[in-house]
């Protein structure tokens, strides 16, 4: 149990996928303008990431390895992720139509969120057990959610600040993201 807890906490804080491993930066920047869209994005990504790491583990160990089809790993995982994203989109469209409008193109783009494929491939590389694979997926998703909500709050507060012209827009967002990344560097080396 402590082992699983370590994996979870390390995925959230120490090896955070967004600001330490720099995966999944596109939705992190794109869907954090508003708190509602940030939370919606976080929930959708959590769902997809956790399920994708579970399903990709099952496919890897029941189909790909026994049949010696490891070379099809990436394309198979992408298909699985795309299907999960599509399913999430159908569910959100039916239950939260306004959120669906707000997230717009970023919802289908979870497919190309490198964090999702990254977790699936890291699970294979590190030879995790089934539970650990899911926990790593969940930890990565929670880390992503934490970061996108923090970043959205910072952007909300920035709206009332006077930002010098050259720094307005994307520039100040990049700087803020870099500063958050620096803060998370403080966790380095704590996963023992």
């Amino acid at each position, binding site marked *: 149990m402590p082992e699983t807890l370590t994996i979870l906490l390390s995925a959230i804080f120490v090896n955070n996928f967004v600001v330490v491993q720099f995966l999944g930066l596109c939705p992190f920047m794109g869907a954090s*303008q*508003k708190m509602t*869209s940030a939370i919606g994005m976080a929930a959708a990504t959590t769902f997809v990431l956790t399920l994708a790491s579970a399903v990709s583990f099952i496919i890897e160990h029941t*189909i790909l390895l026994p*049949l*010696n*089809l490891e070379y*099809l790993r990436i*394309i*198979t995982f992408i*298909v*699985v992720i795309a*299907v999960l994203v*599509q*399913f999430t989109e*159908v*569910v959100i*469209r*039916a*239950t939260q*139509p*306004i959120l*669906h*409008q*707000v*997230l*717009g193109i970023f919802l289908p783009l979870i497919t190309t969120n490198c964090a999702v494929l990254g977790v699936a491939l890291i699970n294979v590389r590190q030879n995790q057990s089934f539970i650990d694979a899911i926990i790593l997926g969940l930890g990565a998703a929670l880390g992503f959610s934490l970061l996108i909500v923090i970043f959205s709050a910072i952007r909300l507060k920035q709206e*009332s*600040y*006077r930002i010098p012209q050259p720094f307005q827009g994307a520039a100040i967002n990049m700087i803020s993201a870099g500063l958050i990344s620096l803060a998370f560097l403080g966790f380095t080396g704590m996963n023992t």
Partner: protein
Amino acid sequence: MTSIILAVLLLGGLALFTGLLLQISAAHLSADDSDVINAINELLPQSQCAQCGFAGCRPYAEAVAEGESINRCPPGGTVLIANLAGLLNRPELPLAEELTAIDQPVSAVIGENDCIGCSLCVKACPVDAIIGAPQLMHTIVQLDCTGCGLCLPPCPVDCIDLIPVSHSNTAKLLPDFDIPCIHCSECMQACPRELAPQQLFLAANNATLAEQLRLSDCIECGLCDRSCPSELPLTRTFHVMKHNNKILSEERAMALRFEKKYARHEQRLAGSASQVANRPKPSEAEELLDALRNQLNP
């Protein structure tokens, strides 16, 4: 060879299986856009002017939900475009080029000396703001006029003019300041009504949030201004916010009225059209007369 067949089988099977699952889930969870359409429709000015190229405000709201551009409403102007961009998370655009911006609210007025009583404008008005019988002079109920200009083209003597509404309130600009809020919370301790002036100040462009923070409880005493180390124009900002929120709620009430009148107008048109369609035809006249005679002399 076997490995190729295996690979094809695996990918094909996976695609087929997951595709089926997706189809089933999509069939069970039908997409419902009515919430989005309602939210968009609530922001539109409900002038029913059809300048956007759609029959009315609601059809335009439906089109926007389907992906139509948000910059096609001249009466809504830049404020509406900003609101829609915020709601739908789309980029703010200037008004579409082929449309002319409406700088100030207008209202139609009939030149009553020239009116010949043709009643063509009565039919054209989407919100039934024009009153008057055929062959008699018409006039426009100013309170109901949305200034859409739809009555202008049908008028054969060009006696209708669009004039600026003189009594209309305009939104004031928020005061300018040099040093931003440093979140020191001094103003919260100074406020005699126990409000949170700094949060209110940051909610200057968000009417609902400002109301949640009890903006209407502010008595504009000016104590927060004196405690602020950045010398922010707090009280003046709150005054402008209250003024603008009042205008906003008045506009909302008007829009609701226009929407209801337009719905009634459409209903009436549909009703009279169906009456005309269901009128007895000349060929059925004999049968109807026979039926009546039978009723009278059984």
